[in-house]
């Protein structure tokens, strides 16, 4: 659960038809090709919020007008809201009980509570519903949890109808913890306002009947919301520099020394903002004409089988809000973001907003780092990365590209992060690793230090151990055993699954799958089944078994060459040449079955390849040749990133002691030097 924020504004190119958020019927290949990226979302919510930051008390005082449109044909009798900040209200919240007050290496110190209180809630006509508010706890029996609120309506909202609500609220920010709060003068204000839940019509994400989808705030979960328009006025002390989701449309200095900034954005489902008097503002424009060559555009159009006009990108105003101490890293931040804008845009369709804001949290505010919000992301760096040698550690780039990737997988393709976290985290991890590997080098995409190179794949594979972990990829995020399981099944394993799929199907097919998935579900809310359907349709293959085994179970994938033998046969009377009976046994050690190639090398011959469907528990290959077998290797092209152990993929018949001699000698040499330091 990396967090990343991004709030920048973007003006959507206008026009157009309203995108239908409901599941689409299966498309034929021809229809797939005809698909266009939707230009705008089906706007369900319209928030107008005025909020004032009280720097002394760290409180927000807000007034919110919300117009909610019933996106279904159902009659809706009540409204459900998220009050996320109440996760930090006391030790009785579900969040606190699950996390123990510790998350992502940060601790919620004693007394460091945060909360949100709805002071009044009225209908647009003035009807006061404040006394009707009730806390709900749909995920557990924790009656003390106050992160979900329900309000019955005096008059139900008919299908397609709207309701207007005026809400007054006060929010206490905690010291930065779990994405939000303050650290000194730094504020990262996320999940801060009463946010209406998602009403899912029948048919969406496999629902049989329409209803609210509203979960409590859990330790290992993020968010889910409907698209709409946000207009937010933030009043802060005059010396503060402010950044937020969307584009700044107005600002004014007030007589009391405060300043008010107005931000607006359409077709987003959340709004976050930041304020810090120390921010150094670095602005640049991502110029599509300058950053993308015609050749790249043409190559992408061919790869995706799209008209060249469909892979055109648009300009974006990038705002970096850097901490002064991290200024030496401004250029690398900007480069990473531009690379991400280009690569994600080419593969998955242009980034449709006009702005992107990147927030650099200060030291002490790391809990706000690595989080995504629409058009607004937070990075994660340290002053240690300013200079050599640690500037060769690409953690800041990894964080930025990942968080930016969420603009596509979470921001626009807005899956339910509570219930299917892999659809945003896993697909983002896979996409980001493609970007990072291509632009920074696959073998050094994480770090290059004193000759030691670490790639992103090394990190992803490091958690993919041969013994299955409890859990699976498609699982509600709060039901994982622990944070490690959540991280593995939401980030690492999906990245390996999708990487494996890419290598099995080929880059072209996989690129078209991902593009089609983005086109079909941009500004909407797909489920895993919707992703499977697109993959089956575009690839022209039934990948159901693959998805069931890898995404919906905790089976592992591991093939090994378990034995390799060559026996000299008695010479036949009619021939003077020696014959060898060579045999190779390949075993399937895991429950995932995929077709595999087996390469077999005989003396003085080029390697031969044999294909096996990989379904049985083992397969024996036998050969009678004049040449003795030298080695055998399963998956010689390294397609199966998900294979939990590559070491057993190959075996040779005669030992080769070069590696063991070299590394034994090297370890001894290091030990000798250590002993020399100790005086020996």
């Amino acid at each position, binding site marked *: 659960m990396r967090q990343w924020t991004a709030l920048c504004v973007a003006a959507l190119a206008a026009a157009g038809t309203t995108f239908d958020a409901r599941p689409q019927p299966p498309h034929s290949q021809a229809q797939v090709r005809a698909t266009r990226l939707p230009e705008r979302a089906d706007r369900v919510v319209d928030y107008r919020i005025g909020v004032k930051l009280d720097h002394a008390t760290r409180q927000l005082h807000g007034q919110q007008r919300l117009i909610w449109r019933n996106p279904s044909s159902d009659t809706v009798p009540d409204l459900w809201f998220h009050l996320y900040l109440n996760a930090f209200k006391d030790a009785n919240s579900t969040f606190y009980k699950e996390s123990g007050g510790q998350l992502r290496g940060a601790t919620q110190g004693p007394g460091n509570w945060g909360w949100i209180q709805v002071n009044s809630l009225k209908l647009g006509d003035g009807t006061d519903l404040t006394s009707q508010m009730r806390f709900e706890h749909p995920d557990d029996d924790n009656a003390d949890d106050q992160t979900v609120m329900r309000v019955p309506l005096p008059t139900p909202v008919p299908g397609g109808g709207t309701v207007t609500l005026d809400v007054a609220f006060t929010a206490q920010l905690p010291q930065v913890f779990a994405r939000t709060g303050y650290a000194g003068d730094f504020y990262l204000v996320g999940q801060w306002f009463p946010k209406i839940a998602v009403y899912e019509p029948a048919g969406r994400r496999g629902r049989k009947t329409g209803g609210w989808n509203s979960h409590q705030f859990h330790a290992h979960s993020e968010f889910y919301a409907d698209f709409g328009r946000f207009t937010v006025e933030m009043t802060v002390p005059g010396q503060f520099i402010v950044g937020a989701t969307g584009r700044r449309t107005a600002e004014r200095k007030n007589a009391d020394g405060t300043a008010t900034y107005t931000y607006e954005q359409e077709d987003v489902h959340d709004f976050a903002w930041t304020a810090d008097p*120390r921010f150094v503002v670095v602005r640049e424009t991502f110029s599509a004409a300058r950053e993308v060559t015609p050749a790249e555009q043409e190559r992408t159009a061919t790869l995706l089988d799209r008209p060249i006009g469909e892979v055109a990108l648009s300009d974006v105003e990038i705002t970096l809000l850097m*901490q*002064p*101490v*991290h*200024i*030496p890293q401004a250029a690398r931040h900007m480069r990473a973001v531009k690379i991400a804008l280009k690569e994600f845009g080419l593969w998955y369709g242009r980034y449709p907003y006009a702005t992107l804001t990147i927030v650099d949290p200060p030291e002490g505010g790391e809990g706000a780092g690595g989080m995504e919000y629409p058009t607004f992301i937070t990075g994660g760096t340290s*002053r*240690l990365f*300013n*200079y050599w040698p640690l500037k060769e550690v690409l953690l800041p780039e990894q964080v930025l590209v990942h968080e930016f990737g969420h603009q596509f997988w979470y921001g626009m393709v807005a899956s339910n992060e509570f219930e299917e976290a892999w659809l945003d985290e896993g697909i983002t991890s896979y996409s980001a690793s493609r970007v990072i590997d291509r632009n920074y080098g696959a073998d050094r995409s994480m770090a290059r230090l004193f*000759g*030691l*190179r*670490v*790639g992103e*794949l*090394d990190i992803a*594979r*490091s958690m993919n*151990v*041969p013994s299955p972990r409890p859990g699976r990829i498609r699982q509600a995020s709060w039901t994982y055993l622990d944070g490690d399981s959540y991280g593995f099944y939401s980030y690492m394993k999906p990245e390996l699954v999708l990487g494996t799929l890419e290598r099995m199907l080929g880059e072209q097919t996989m690129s078209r799958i991902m593009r089609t998935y983005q086109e079909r579900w941009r500004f909407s809310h797909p489920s895993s089944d919707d992703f499977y359907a697109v993959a089956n349709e575009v690839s022209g293959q039934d990948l159901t078994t693959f998805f069931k085994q890898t995404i919906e179970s905790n089976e592992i994938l591991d093939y090994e060459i378990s034995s390799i033998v060559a026996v000299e046969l008695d010479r036949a009377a009619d021939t003077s040449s020696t014959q060898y009976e060579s045999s190779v046994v390949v075993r399937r050690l895991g429950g995932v079955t995929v077709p595999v190639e087996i390469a077999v090398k005989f003396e003085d011959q080029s390697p031969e390849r044999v294909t096996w469907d990989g379904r049985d528990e083992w397969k024996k290959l036998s050969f009678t040749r004049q040449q003795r077998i030298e*080695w055998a*290797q399963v998956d010689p092209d390294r397609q199966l990133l998900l294979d*939990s*152990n*590559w*070491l*057993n*993929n*190959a*075996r*040779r018949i005669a*030992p*080769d*002691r*070069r*590696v*063991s*001699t*070299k*590394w*034994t*000698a*090297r*370890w*001894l*040499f290091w*030990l*000798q*030097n*250590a*002993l*020399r330091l*100790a*005086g*020996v």
Partner: protein
Amino acid sequence: MLSTSVGRGLRAIVAHARAAAMLWLANLALASVALLPVWSWWTRTAMLPETDPLLERFQVGIFRDLLIDGGGLGVGIILLTVIGLLIVALPVSVFLAGGTLEVLVSEDGQPFFQRFLRGGSHFFWRFLRLTIVGGVVMLITVAIVAVAANVVVSPLNKSNWPPGAFVALAIQAVAIGLVAMYFLLSLDYARIQLALSDRGGVLRAWLAALWLVGRHPLRTYGLAFVFAVLFGLAAAGYLFVIARIGTHTMNLILAGIAIQQLFILIRACLRVGLLAGEMELYQWLRPATVPGGRFAPAVPPAPAADDPIDLSLAQ
């Protein structure tokens, strides 16, 4: 004075090559205790072509696979062996220091090994006590200096000046390094005093050495710096050669091993040279009240700056 000491040290490397060889052999013998567990861990790779990329360079992914594929226990055994060796290294280093100094000091016509073993055993307990006392005080002092330096540089750490943290880190490292060096040099000079005089208590020798290094920091640190530069040159040369030699054939790997051992031998030579140079410097700097002992005249006349002391005459 400094150049004379350096010259004396460099000449001693040639004159006492057997002492350097002895240090190298002892180092190799001790390290070889870990040979079996290390070899048995790596020998699995002989049948596994997937590990062949390790001939090019270290790869985290392959190492991770080796660990997961039943290699965790082996690494644990290797680590325990190494820790055990580093513990054993303390008394062994004390013995080697006694033997080396005895070889440098004595010219009694006895065979080399006899003198080396005699010195190692003769000074063992005194050098051991000296090392323990000096080591403990050094650790405590270094810890105090580290904390104090941290407090001093904290404004730099908290500043908005981008290189602030690096400068702070460098200041801390230099402070800690200078203090640790002070104690390590004092340990050397205390051992030299004991070896030369063979009289006096350990504590007195150590305190005298602390005083000596404290009074003459430029000379004592300077001599060590010269040998550190020589070590740096040797290390750079090693890295230059080893990076170009390749490891694709067994012959190249064996050549690489030879170069590694040559580097360790050079380190041993530099250690002998430093000790000889420090001994020379000590003769120049020691207070008149320190007895010359069995190998030195009571109080030699103050030599001219370019007049090196001939230790063989000092007997």
